[in-house]
């Protein structure tokens, strides 16, 4: 019985992968994403972490505000640090915060969506009121307020993004759970004496998993862009410099007036590439999970 279900699930995964491979934009997104993940993982091989330390950079005799033609692949900044090292090590922070915040978003959204959709009645009404309240409150100002009150630290940023961006996920999952709940196999399982948790775990969850996954992929861009904006406004973690933090330092220290494009162009391009990659992958997964969409294209 279990092995049959396992087999069927493996077959589904194989089918999804086959469909995914036939989508050109999805594969481009996956390729770009893998490139950046490799860069983040191989950061110690690509750039010396000590290059991020201004004292070390000065001792090395690095020039100040050097364009790429004079120093390293990407030049130096106002305190002689290598911009390439900041780019490589910043990818770790940006990707990590983006992914961790998305996991939190999806976790909160799925739990609330499944409870509200499956239990129904009063808990549903209460949870949906809370969700609506979070939907109406302007997202970025709330994140800013929370971040400035909680303090500048990576985990706070992750918490802030997760706590402000779960409502749309919750609504989507709830709607899907409501339709799955009507299906005949749920009634059958219940008449065979299955408990609520068994039905959710064995019947509801597998049927909303595809949607959760597609939604998660589309939530990553929002998390990464929010982290970037928060860091740019000075709410980033000072000890873990993300791409957004690089942009903030470039802006505050006058890279724009000096036309030091090498300082702020790479970090922005990195964000653009990663966000675009996740969007392309997410849209492809969404089309697979919801075939009605691909027919329209």
């Amino acid at each position, binding site marked *: 019985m279990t092995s049959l279900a396992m087999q069927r699930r493996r077959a589904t995964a194989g089918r999804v992968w086959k469909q995914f491979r036939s989508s050109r934009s999805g594969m481009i997104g996956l390729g770009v994403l893998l490139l950046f993940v490799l860069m983040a993982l191989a950061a110690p091989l690509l750039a010396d972490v000590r290059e991020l330390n201004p004292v070390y950079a000065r001792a090395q005799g690095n020039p100040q505000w050097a364009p790429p033609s004079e120093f390293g692949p990407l030049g130096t900044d106002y305190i002689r640090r290598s911009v390439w090292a900041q780019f490589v090590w910043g990818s770790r922070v940006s990707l990590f915060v983006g992914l961790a915040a998305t996991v939190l978003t999806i976790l909160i959204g799925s739990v609330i969506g499944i409870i509200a959709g499956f239990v129904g009645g009063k808990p549903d009404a209460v949870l949906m009121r809370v969700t609506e309240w979070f939907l109406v409150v302007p997202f970025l100002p709330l994140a800013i307020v929370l971040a400035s009150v909680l303090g500048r630290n990576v985990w706070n940023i992750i918490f802030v993004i997760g706590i402000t961006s779960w409502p749309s996920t919750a609504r989507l999952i709830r709607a899907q759970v409501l339709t799955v709940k009507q299906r005949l196999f749920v009634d059958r399982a219940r008449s065979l004496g299955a408990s609520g948790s068994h039905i959710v775990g064995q019947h509801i969850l597998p049927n909303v998993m595809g949607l959760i996954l597609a939604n998660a992929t589309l939530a990553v861009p929002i998390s990464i*862009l929010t982290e970037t*904006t928060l860091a740019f406004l*000075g709410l980033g973690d000072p000890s873990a410099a993300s791409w957004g933090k690089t*942009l903030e330092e470039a802006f505050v220290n006058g890279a724009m007036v000096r036309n030091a494009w090498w300082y702020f162009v790479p970090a*922005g391009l990195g964000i*653009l590439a990663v966000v675009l990659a996740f*969007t392309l992958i997410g849209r492809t997964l969404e089309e697979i999970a919801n075939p009605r969409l691909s027919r329209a*294209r």
Partner: protein
Amino acid sequence: MFNFFLFRVVQTDPIGSLFRGRNVPQETLENLRVAFGLDQPLGTQFLFYLRESAQLNFGISYQTRQPVWDEIVAAIPATVALVGVSAILSAVIGTIGGIIAAWRRNTWKDHSITSGTMVFYSMPDFWLGMILLVLFAVVLGWFPVGGVSTAGSGESGLALLIDQAYHMFLPALTLTLAYLGEYTLVTRSSLLDVMGEDYLTVARAKGLRDVAVRNRHAVPNALLPVVTLTAINFGFVLSGAIAVEAVFSWPGLGKLTADAIRGPDLPMLQALFLLFSAAVIVFNLIADLTYSWLDPRVEGQ
């Protein structure tokens, strides 16, 4: 109400963080706490907050020592002008782009519009602003690097208006490009949904030209979600341009917010947050009303 507790319960010591460990005599700190009413118990502070908010008295800014509300009122026109213009432009251009993309789907027009808007949609808006600023203001020198008008020129009337429009060009271009993508993608998918409907086949069978089918029959039905999106986005107009205003030193609510974060200037942030939330709630209501007015089918539900 939530607003009050968010700021009070979680915050540590606003006066302490104001000076960030600089050497300030303990006595001065105590005097400041009394002056800002922070020595009172929490319940008293809350009642005081409710009464004062109802009278639009949000206290004194920790940073400038001016009444918070006066500073906000002074900053509103700049933001409404900048973000209002960008919101209208992006809605109009984005919708037209979406219509073209959907009507000519899977042609080079569709592909270039869709991928172009997705690229703008995927970059941080303030980074786009930084690039445009360096390119057009620093390198080419065509536009000013920031501010709302040329300082000390003493212009008035039409000349001042033109000067302000000239200063607004780059930030407005940034925001328009950044907002465009959402409208294009929503319009496109909504129109594609409509395009399979029977009444379009009927319209064609009547012998109507392609343009007439599109403009009279397809587009009006496809625009419903776009109208909702527009109304909701207008709610975010006031809070929409925080980082972009900071980049162009545009003296609006966004820059006020960005400056208040650096403090942190809590009374200022608190009042701004209240204002932003109120704007969203009002425009959500407007969105609901226009939707049921445009689509009578919603009324029954």
